Structures are given as structure tokens and as C-alpha cells.
């Protein structure tokens, strides 16, 4: 029996190949993600291990709170006088204070280096004098010898075409600084740590320009021979003031490694979701292939039964075939996964995150997970066709070959499908809108059930849908069109199963497209509502740093400008939860930003006051005049009074501090954006020119008008969208291969019919056209169903997210129409191989074939 199966498999190499390929791609993606995760983990473990190789202890402020958005522990700074007292502790060999903050280099072409908004951050710090503690190694030049000299990382030097001896500008706090490149350094073996840019000053200059004079972010220590790390920490602890801690170098290493892994865990989950989608789509394809081949082998299996094979033997013969495909495909997928990891690494690099070093890490768990996933998907998908094969009665051997039943779906089937759909939709809606808040589990389950429900109903929906979609074909393509439509309708079960695979991919594409365009529409709408100025100067910096607040002052001094105001941002723990808070000057800001006060007045945002977004206030039960506990990293716990409750949280966010409160609690202040309103009588062009002259001194800063600003804010959404599309393309390609495979198998089944058509005068071109249009009907069918589901998901999620600021539902009809057209084109592409094969059939051979 086993031998019969394997012989059968080898006799149909092409069929096996395409089926296996579906699983291979899914597994490859999964393996690639896992390999990449391990590689990143290993790379940075090694990197941090190297950086802290000689650091025996670190003295630093205790964590004030855990920052929002995985930004890690937020700490204040320690006084530099501590260095002297630590040096006196016995067992200490080397002590050095360290700072790190925002700095952005300007390249030779006058443009700022790096793109901290989208990619890796740009930092400034001090060049470590202590050789043991310096992770950088000079590859050219010398350490900085004066306050206006810097060492930069090799990647920045290359990106900015800077060489030792060049003079350039660096953006820091306060006005931009002119510096001379004294040296260029590598970070361990890498050109830069993870693609980040570093500008390293002398100690005092670094303190002044990127941190605070007289303060260090941390103090690193090296112990004398024979003093262990814990021993050193225990000796240091007694001399530390309150709120300052000492930890071992080993602990800091682990901390950094963990932080990085956590930062990447979102990205990994994100990639794994796509891998699962790809595998799911591959599963559909396997199900379809096996269903068709089992139908085609009805007579053969009937004969085997007649000759004495048991049901169990037939069942296991199909499962053995599936296992063989699963094993081969998973193994190939695993191998391909290593290449995929390389491609993903390249993609990360394109987003500005370079992973130093080459090599990849293939862990045992990756191997096991990938192979098991591939096997499970293959076997589960093959189970139902295998059972069907086992049910074939011996008499089937005697009957004429009836390949594939019409299969419109039984009553029970329709009932089950509807039930799945209803339960799925309910679970989703309850998950999204229920009193218990949004529960991801319920929503995910709902989504899955909806997809399955539609798949179960597929064969019932498929017939009328094929008829409708194909209705223009007889007129457009004559006999070829009629036949294409009839062929798409002749086995609704098969058409539906092929279309289902595509439906999943397109459903997700549609959903994401709607979510993205609704998000952009919401940003646009709230920007229109809230931003009443004429121009916005955007810093181009990311979460770290920004423009010197002095620029707003310079702009205010321009005669063309009526008023300019800066928007600063910082982290704080408000009422026990980590938050982003905005800093605004109440004297000018509200002329440009209409936050729509509900209660209180922006003018009251003084030294100990805070403004709270209306919905947040309601959520937290805050009323005007209430006291809120707020923790800042630099000043610790504070109690602020609610002086303003407002209705518009774009672009300011949920909490506002007046500039007095902001400066009192944050040691560093940068403006992320500066909003500008032109003076009465000043022309737009002249104002813009004047603003650009001022902003020109701050490389990286860009001047936008309202429309450009909206587009710029939407650009981030588009970038994520592009990434998502690229990843979903995989699932869609697999689905298209599935359509091609189904067509190829159908053609094999219809060989004699095709021969007849050719004999009575169908030209090759007409035959190709018939198959092409059948493919288009299947592809468009899957796409239409997918889009319907996607639009529903999109609508549901956008409605549920109204509270989160996505208050516009935007149906991007143009983009969705493009998806349908692309699907039709893809259908044509999927049919290329099968139609060519059909057209080249030998007419006589086809007629004579069994």
C-alpha cells in the first residue's frame, strides 16, 4: 500500500511540486521570522556583552517609572560630584561619568544624517577617556581634544561623507554647534550600534550640549583585580545618596539585552501573524489539491477497494502522501527560511535598522516549530479529502469516471456556515463594542470564524457569484467566454475553495487599507479642526530630541509672523500610568492650536497645573481643580492641579503642561513642532520664505503648510501600510499559485473535452482565453468576497476605535477598485501556465485519452 502511494506521488511530480510549494512558502516565512529573531537576539547579546565587558558596576538614579511605548525605565541624572566620592571607595580602579542625549549631525551636503523619525535614533554623548569603558575604537583621527571637537561613528561618517578634519554642524540643545571631526570610530566590530548615529564630545561639552552641566546619566566603574562585581556593588552602596543605585555590569548587560528583545517582540509578533496567514492560505491550497486528486482517482481507489484494500488503508495512503509532502515542504521551507531571514534583515536595514555582523542563528526550537507547523497544516488540510477517499465504494471502479460532484452545499452545510458566520460576527462585535471593553481574543476568534463561515458557505455562494461575474463574458468573448463562465460554474465547490485562499489575503488587505485610510482621514480632520496656523516647522527628530525652543522666539521676532509656538513632548507617569505629555506656551499656543476647552482656561496652565483631554478625564474620573499625582524622571513625584479639560487631542495628546510646569519638571526641552501664523497683510510666500530662512539653520527641520503637514503625518501610516502590503503579498502569491494549481488539475481532468473543442474548431487562442477568463472569475470572486469581509472588519474596527481618535470612516473606493483590477490581472497571470499547457495539448491524444 505504502509503495503504491509513493509511486503515485512520483508519477505526479508537478502536482506534488506546486502543492508542496504552498507549504514551503508559509514555512519559509515562519522560519525566516524565527531565524531573524534569534539572529537579532544573538547579535545584540554579543554586542552588549562586548560593550559592558569591562564594566563591573554602574551607578545611576533609580527608575522613576517605566516609560510608555516600550521606551524602558525612565531615570533622572546623578550629580557629578558623586564621581569623586566613588573614586575613594576601596576596590575601585576606574570611575567615569557618562551622558547620552539627542544630537544630530549634518552631513557634507548640509542635510541632517539619519532619519530618527522613521529609523534608528541619533545620539550625542561623551567620548570615554577610560579605555576599559569605551566601546568605540578609533579607526581614524584622535579623541576630541577641545569642546568643539567630536568623534563620530563610521556609519555616520560614510552617510554624511565626513572625514577627519572636516568642520560641520551638529544639532543639540540650544543653537546648532559648529564642530570639527577629530576622529571616526567603530562600535566593536560594527560601523555603528544598530544603525544609530553617535556624536561624541569631550565630557563637559557633552554634559552641556546633550544633557545638563554638572550631571551624569550614569557612572561606570571598574574594580581592581580580585574584587568581584557583587562585592564592588556592596562596597559602593553605602556611599550613595537616596534615589541612587549601584548595579553590577552583568545586570546592566542583561537589562539592555532584555530591553532590546522587548522592543523587537512587537515586530516579531507582527511578522509571525503574516507567517500564520501564509500557512493558512497554504492549507487551503493543500485541501483543494487533495480534494481534486481524490476525486480524480475515484475509479483507481474503487479498484483498490474492490481488490481488497480496507477503508483504513485508503485513508492512510492519502495521509502518507500528505505526510511526504509535508516533510519535504517543511524541510525546504526551513532551508528557504534562512534566505528569508536575510531578506527581512535587508528590509530592516532599509528602514534604518542595521544588524551588524553577518551569519544567522538557526536554533533547534526554530527547526522544530517550523517543521511541526508545516506538518500540522498539511495533515489537517488533507484529513477531510482523505476521509472522502476512504468512503469511495468498490463499485466506483465499475462506474464511469465522474470527477467531482457539483456540490452546491447541503442544507446542513448552509446551516453550519450561517451559524459560524453569525457566531463569528457576534463574537467580533461583542469583542469590539461589548461592555467589557475591546477583547482581542473575542475579536480574533470572530475574524477566524467569519473566514471559516464564508469558506463553508463558499460553494453555495460561488454558483450565483460566478454566474454574475461571468455574465458579460459571453458578449465580450463569445464561445470562449461562455465556456469560461460555465467552467467556473461547473464545480462550485472547487471554484469556492480556490477563491477562499485568495479571499483571506485580500480580506486582510482590504481591512488594513480601510484602517489606514480612516486613520489618515481622522488625522486630517483633527488637524483641520485643531491647527489654525499657516505653517508648521517639523523638527524631523523622533522620540528623542527636537528643535531648540529658541527657534520659536526667532520666528516670533519676524515681521511676517503674527505668532509662533513650539510643541514639546516628554514622558511622565500620570495617575499611575505612563503617558506622553505635551508642553505648550499658554500665552501663544492656543492662538494656533484650538484644543476646544470644555472647562477651565488655557491661561491657567501655570507652574503646578495640568490640562487633561476630556475623554481621559472622564475615564479617570478627574474634574477641574482635582489634584493629580504625576511622576517626572528629573523631579520625581509631583502633585498637579487640573486647570483645563479639552476636547481635541490632536496634535497635542491627552495631557498638556504649560511651559512653566514643563521646564520645572524636565531638564531638557526640545520642540517637536513649531506652529506659525502669518501676520495680517503678510503674503503667504513671503512668510514662508522668512520662516524657511530661520528654519534653514536647523538641518532636518522642514517647513510645511497645512496640507503638507497632513500629508507628512499620513506618511508614517503609508510607510507601515507599504510594509504590510509587502508581507501580505506572500499570502496572495500563494493563493494565486493555488488558483493556477486548481486550473492545471481541472485541465488534466478535462483533457478529452479540450481535445473535442480543438477538433471541432476552437483555436489555441480561444482555448487560452477560455482558461484565462475562468481564472479571472475565480480570482475576482475571491477578491470580491475578501473585500466584503475586509470592509466589514474595517468598518467594525474603525467604529470601535472612535474613542482612540479614529473618528472618520473612510472607504478608499479607488484603492479597493485597484485591488479588484489587480486581482483580475493576477488571475490572468495565474492562468498563463495552465492555459499554455492546455493550448499545446495534442488534439488527437487528448480525444483518445482516458
Amino acid at each position, binding site marked *: 500500500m505504502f509503495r503504491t502511494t509513493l509511486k503515485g506521488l512520483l508519477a505526479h511530480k508537478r502536482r506534488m511540486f506546486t502543492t508542496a510549494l504552498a507549504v514551503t512558502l508559509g514555512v519559509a516565512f515562519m522560519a525566516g521570522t524565527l531565524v531573524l529573531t534569534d539572529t537579532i537576539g544573538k547579535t545584540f547579546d554579543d554586542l552588549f556583552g562586548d560593550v559592558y565587558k569591562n564594566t563591573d558596576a554602574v551607578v545611576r538614579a533609580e527608575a522613576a517609572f517605566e516609560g510608555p511605548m516600550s521606551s524602558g525605565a525612565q531615570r533622572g541624572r546623578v550629580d557629578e560630584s558623586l564621581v569623586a566620592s566613588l573614586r575613594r571607595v576601596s576596590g575601585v580602579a576606574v570611575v567615569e561619568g557618562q551622558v547620552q542625549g539627542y544630537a544630530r549631525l549634518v552631513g557634507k551636503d548640509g542635510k541632517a544624517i539619519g532619519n530618527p523619525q522613521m529609523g534608528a535614533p541619533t545620539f550625542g554623548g561623551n567620548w570615554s577617556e577610560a579605555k576599559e569603558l569605551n566601546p568605540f575604537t578609533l579607526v581614524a583621527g584622535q579623541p576630541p581634544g577641545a569642546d568643539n571637537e567630536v568623534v563620530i561613528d563610521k556609519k555616520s561618517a560614510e552617510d554624511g561623507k565626513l572625514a577627519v578634519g572636516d568642520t560641520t554642524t551638529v544639532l543639540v540643545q540650544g543653537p546648532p554647534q559648529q564642530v570639527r571631526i577629530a576622529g571616526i570610530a567603530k562600535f566593536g566590530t560594527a560601523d555603528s550600534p544598530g544603525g544609530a548615529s553617535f556624536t561624541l564630545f569631550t565630557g563637559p561639552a557633552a554634559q552641556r550640549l546633550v544633557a545638563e552641566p554638572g550631571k551624569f546619566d550614569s557612572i561606570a566603574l571598574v574594580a581592581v583585580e580580585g574584587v568581584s562585581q557583587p562585592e564592588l556593588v556592596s562596597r559602593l552602596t553605602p556611599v550613595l545618596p537616596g534615589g541612587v543605585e549601584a548595579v553590577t555590569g552583568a545586570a546592566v548587560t542583561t537589562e539592555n539585552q532584555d530591553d532590546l528583545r522587548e522592543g523587537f517582540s512587537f515586530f516579531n509578533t507582527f511578522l509571525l501573524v503574516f507567517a500564520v496567514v501564509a500557512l493558512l492560505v497554504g492549507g487551503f491550497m493543500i485541501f483543494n489539491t487533495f480534494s481534486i486528486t481524490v476525486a480524480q482517482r475515484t475509479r483507481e481507489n474503487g479498484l483498490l477497494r474492490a481488490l481488497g484494500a480496507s477503508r483504513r488503508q485508503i485513508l492512510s495512503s492519502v495521509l502518507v502522501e500528505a505526510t511526504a509532502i509535508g516533510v519535504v515542504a517543511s524541510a525546504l521551507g526551513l532551508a528557504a527560511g534562512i534566505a528569508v531571514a536575510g531578506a527581512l534583515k535587508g528590509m530592516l536595514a532599509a528602514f534604518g535598522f542595521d544588524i551588524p555582523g553577518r551569519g544567522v542563528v538557526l536554533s533547534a526550537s526554530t527547526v522544530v516549530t517550523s517543521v511541526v507547523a508545516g506538518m500540522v497544516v498539511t495533515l489537517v488540510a488533507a484529513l477531510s479529502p482523505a476521509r472522502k477517499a476512504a468512503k469511495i465504494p468498490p463499485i466506483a471502479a465499475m462506474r464511469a469516471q465522474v470527477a467531482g460532484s457539483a456540490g452546491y452545499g447541503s442544507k446542513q452545510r448552509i446551516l453550519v456556515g450561517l451559524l459560524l458566520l453569525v457566531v463569528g460576527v457576534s463574537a467580533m462585535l461583542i469583542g469590539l463594542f461589548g461592555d467589557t471593553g475591546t477583547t482581542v481574543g473575542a475579536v480574533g476568534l470572530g475574524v477566524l470564524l467569519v473566514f471559516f463561515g464564508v469558506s463553508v458557505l463558499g460553494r453555495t455562494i460561488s454558483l450565483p457569484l460566478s454566474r454574475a461575474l461571468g455574465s458579460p463574458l459571453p458578449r465580450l468573448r463569445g*464561445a470562449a467566454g461562455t*465556456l469560461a463562465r460555465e467552467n467556473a460554474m*461547473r464545480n462550485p465547490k472547487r471554484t469556492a475553495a480556490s477563491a477562499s485562499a485568495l479571499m483571506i489575503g485580500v480580506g486582510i488587505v482590504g481591512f488594513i487599507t480601510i484602517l489606514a485610510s480612516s486613520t489618515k482621514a481622522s488625522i486630517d480632520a483633527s488637524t483641520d479642526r485643531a491647527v489654525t496656523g499657516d505653517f508648521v516647522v517639523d523638527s524631523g527628530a523622533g522620540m528623542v530630541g527636537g528643535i531648540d525652543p529658541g527657534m520659536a522666539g526667532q520666528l516670533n521676532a519676524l515681521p511676517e509672523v503674527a505668532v509662533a509656538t513650539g510643541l514639546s513632548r516628554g514622558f511622565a507617569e500620570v495617575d499611575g500610568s505612563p503617558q506622553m505629555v505635551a508642553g505648550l506656551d499658554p500665552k501663544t499656543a492656543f492662538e494656533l492650536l484650538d484644543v476646544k476647552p470644555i472647562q477651565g482656561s488655557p491661561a491657567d496652565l501655570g507652574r503646578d497645573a495640568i490640562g487633561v483631554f476630556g475623554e481621559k478625564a472622564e475615564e479617570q474620573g478627574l474634574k477641574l481643580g482635582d489634584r493629580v499625582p504625576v511622576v517626572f524622571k528629573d523631579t520625581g513625584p509631583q502633585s498637579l492641579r487640573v486647570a483645563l479639560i479639552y476636547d481635541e487631542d490632536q496634535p497635542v495628546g491627552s495631557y498638556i503642561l504649560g511651559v512653566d510646569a514643563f521646564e520645572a519638571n524636565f531638564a531638557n526641552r526640545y520642540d517637536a513642532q513649531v506652529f506659525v501664523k502669518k501676520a495680517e497683510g503678510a503674503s503667504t510666500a513671503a512668510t514662508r520664505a522668512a520662516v524657511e530662512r530661520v528654519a534653514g539653520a536647523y538641518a532636518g527641520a522642514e517647513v510645511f503648510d497645512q496640507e503638507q503637514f497632513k500629508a507628512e503625518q499620513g506618511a508614517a501610516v503609508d510607510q507601515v501600510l507599504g510594509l504590510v502590503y509587502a508581507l501580505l503579498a506572500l499570502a496572495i502569491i500563494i493563493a494565486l499559485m493555488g488558483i493556477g494549481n486548481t486550473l492545471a488539475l481541472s485541465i488534466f481532468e478535462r483533457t*478529452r473535452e479540450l481535445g473535442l473543442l480543438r*477538433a471541432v*474548431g*476552437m*483555436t489555441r487562442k480561444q482555448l487560452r482565453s477560455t482558461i484565462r477568463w475562468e481564472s479571472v472569475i475565480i480570482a475576482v470572486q475571491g477578491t470580491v468576497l475578501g473585500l466584503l469581509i475586509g470592509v466589514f472588519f474595517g468598518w467594525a474596527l474603525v467604529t470601535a476605535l472612535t474613542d482612540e481618535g479614529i473618528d472618520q470612516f473612510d472607504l478608499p473606493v479607488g484603492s479597493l477598485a485597484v485591488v479588484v483590477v489587480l486581482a483580475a490581472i493576477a488571475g490572468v497571470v495565474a492562468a498563463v501556465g495552465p492555459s499554455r499547457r492546455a493550448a499545446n495539448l495534442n*488534439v488527437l491524444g487528448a480525444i483518445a485519452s482516458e
Partner: protein
Amino acid sequence: MAIRATDVTRPSTGPAAARTVDALKVYGKGQTEVRALDGVSVEFAAGRFTAIMGPSGSGKSTLLHCIAGLDSLSSGKAFIGNADLSTLDDQKLTILRRDRVGFIFQAYNLVPTLTAIENITLPLTLAGHKGDQAWIDNVVATMGIGQRLQHRPSELSGGQQQRVAVARALATRPQIIFADEPTGNLDSRSGAEVLQFMRQAVDDMGQTIVMVTHDPVAASYADRIVFLADGRIVDEMHQPTAERVLERMKRFGE
């Protein structure tokens, strides 16, 4: 309603509707070489019903396929009317089959997804024209399938299916119809019906039919029988009867 010969524009006698000259068809090479056709020169007169007979492996089907443009000769020539098939590419051959040749096969004659009438008009639809409706009505009436036109092949009996196939072959008023064992899958009564209809097509409509068969009764419906053995024409018979054909066929066994 029957159609009389005078309704038909095509003359009932005259030049050959199809012919071969020194037709040679070789399969395989060297030791395994098989000469399926070994220098066959034959003419099929217009307006006549010709049967090709011979034992299994005599090359009768190969001859039919090669004259019909479904297969190519190794050497020699095959003509439909004046068209030399060896000079035509696949596209031109296909169009020739569509417009000038009719086919009736042993089984699986019809496209399962199309109704009877759609099957009948298929060559016309493929050519992109409607055809002569009055003619098609006549053909349908002659074949006695007027009540079954909207049915799909799976809803028709074997005999009805073959009559639909004959109607399709007639629908384009082809220069010649080739039939390959058209009654091979039918019981004797349905077979006789189908043959009677084919006879009628020749007598009343002036059609030219060439049929391959191994059944003496079927062959007796023809005007003329060409006997093949080992790829050569070995005999010929005019106005055959089943008894005479059987007699002749028995001699192949000797």
C-alpha cells in the same frame, strides 16, 4: 421535415471532397518502426457516404485522423477540397476544421457544460457568427431532437447524444464529415437510428460522410467501403450489404 437534394447548393457528385496521395504514417524508429499508413492514395467523392473498414491495427483510424487534419502524415499529401493540409499551420488547420469539416466521435462528443443547442452551434459560435437559423432548424428537426435542445448532455440518452453530435457536424454545412465509430457505444437500435440519420444527411442534404467502423451492419449504410489492412488499401466494395461485408471481413481472419 426532410430536405431534398435540390435545396442544397453543393453538387452531389463531382470532384473529390477529400483525398490522399501516397499517404505514409510511420510511428517509432528502427526496430520499433510501425507503418500505420503505407502509401495510401484514396479519394472520397462529394455527396457520398464512404466507410473505411479493416481489422484492428489496419490503420483505418489513422487514415481518418490524417485526412481530417487531426494528425499529420510522415510523407505524402492529404487534401480537403483543394487545401493541402501539410501546408497549413495549427491556426489554419483549426479554422479549416471549424468551417469545412464536421466530426462525430465514438463517445464524449459533447461539451458537458453546454446545452444540446449550444453544442450544435458550437463551431458557429467559435467562428463568431450565428449561422443559418433555418438550416439549423431543419437539421434539428431531421435529427428529431427538437424537444431536447435545452438539456445538457448528462440529461440525454446515448443515442440522443450522438444525434446531437450529428446535428453539430451538419450545422456548419461542412464540405465533409468524419465519423469515427459513431455507433460503437450505442445499443443496436440507437445505433441504427443514428446511421439512418447519417444516411439521410447524405441522401437529402447532399452531405459527404467518411466513417470508420468495424461493424458490418454500420458499414452497410455506406455507398462504398474501402478496406484497409497493414496500412494499405486492399479492397473496395460498392452498394454493400451486411452479409457481403461480413463475408469480406472474415477473409481478413484467414
